[in-house]
């Protein structure tokens, strides 16, 4: 058997794949496979989706604004789920920090001479952490986010195909 493709072991794809597979096995190990009800499937779907996002964000390692924002979001959500009291506390303080930094950007409405404010706002809602970015950084982050999303979709598709036949 010849191996023509030698994937870089430190590339984004391999980092994401190893992390995601690890998370998948953890999820599958938790639940017994007997359940096939839609609620169970839905619960597992939530967990798998979170695992996919989290492993992608960890692979990027908080070098990017969107990955940091996503990690923060996931972490705050998990804290809130575990312990409502502590979640409220930390969530409030973190949100206060976020609002303080982002208020200056949002309320100013960002009319800086370029004519696409509505699209930019919509893009800001799509990209995690986009509210705190000016247009320049937003486009930057969007490009990197698109690249990571395509990698994610590729890998997950291959995994799903592998296990679904």
């Amino acid at each position: 058997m010849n191996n023509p493709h030698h994937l870089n072991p430190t590339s984004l794809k391999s980092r994401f794949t190893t992390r995601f597979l690890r998370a998948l096995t953890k999820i599958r190990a938790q639940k017994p496979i007997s359940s096939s009800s839609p609620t169970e499937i839905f619960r597992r779907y939530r967990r798998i989706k979170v695992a996919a996002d989290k492993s992608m964000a960890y692979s990027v390692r908080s070098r990017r604004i969107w990955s940091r924002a996503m990690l923060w979001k996931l972490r705050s959500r998990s804290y809130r789920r575990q312990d409502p009291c502590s979640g409220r506390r930390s969530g409030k303080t973190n949100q206060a920090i976020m609002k303080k930094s982002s208020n200056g950007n949002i309320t100013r409405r960002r009319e800086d001479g370029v004519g696409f404010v509505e699209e930019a706002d919509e893009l800001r809602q799509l990209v995690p952490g986009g509210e705190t970015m000016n247009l320049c950084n937003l486009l930057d982050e969007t490009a990197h986010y698109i690249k990571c999303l395509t990698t994610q979709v590729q890998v997950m598709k291959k995994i799903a195909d592998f296990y679904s036949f």
Partner: protein
Amino acid sequence: MESNAGTLETRSNRTASEREEVAALESLQFTDEIHRLMSAPATDNASSFTALLELPAPQAVQLIHSPDSAKLIAAPAPNVEDVKGGFHFPSNGGLIERAARFSVFAGEGNNKSDSPEATSNNSSANLQKAVKSEPAETESSQPLISDPTVENRGIKRKDREKVKGQTKKSKTTAKESSDDAEKLPYVHVRARRGQATDSHSLAERARREKINARMKLLQELVPGCNKISGTALVLDEIINHVQSLQRQVEFLSMRLAAVNPRIDFNFDSVFTAEGVPPQYLKELLIKLYDKRKSSGSLMDSNFSGMVMPMMWPEVQLNSNRQQYPQQLHFDAFQQPVWGREEVCNNYLTPENSLLSYDSSANSGNFLDTLNEST
């Protein structure tokens, strides 16, 4: 470097000694710089914009450079015509090259050896054209210098101060570049004739250039955006693409949740370690194959067939389409392939990565299919 630029800026008479000194200085300092440029390795984790998008540096530089190339032709390099009379042709060419090389865009850690030459050829042609077309230009305009190293920023600022009020004025985005030095190479802004040259409009123009450069790169990322003209439509396309990608991730995670393989992943021991060494990957694959052999793959297909039609017809189509040929492959190859240990070794030993395998024609290995499209 500073004294070198200073001597070239003045329009004093060139003496032989000055010429030699300049030539010596430039050869001294410039070769060091070129060596520094050449030896900077291109890292995978370079956070420059071009490395990030995995475009080769010259191509990205061309993209960014192209809106400025027209302006570049318009304004000549001052060194060249100041010294045009006095210098011989070889050193003239050397100066052109030097000025051209200074305008090489240098992303951090992203310097390839061909990029200085490529852009220098481009820019030297432009500069020579400029020299011939505008001999009457006598004012010493600002050289279009992009300094690849940090210590040259001081020189740039000093040169900028030397510029008197002119119609043609260029501004290197030094302050913005200090923020974006890692992200995007310098985008040069040159005020056209008759345009306002105050700092606000220049800064705005610089920002717009940056935004346009990024939009161009985004257009390449998103398929089908090249034909669309108009930034608002391109942005809409980008938004649609991001939304579709996010939805695809959701669908795929639903599918993964529903697929519910009968395979028990007993990889706890394998995955407790942080980095996954190749030995673990080998075990992982062996276990994967053993489990697939023992479990009935038909059950998986039936199960997913049951769940899918209710909610995601598109996903179901996808899985159904690929079921049958892969099943045949799998059953045919099952016995002979995975019974033998040496075949697994062939899969695993050359590479440390989980992902570097052959096409799926050989086996139903998802690791193969993982790699086929790349």
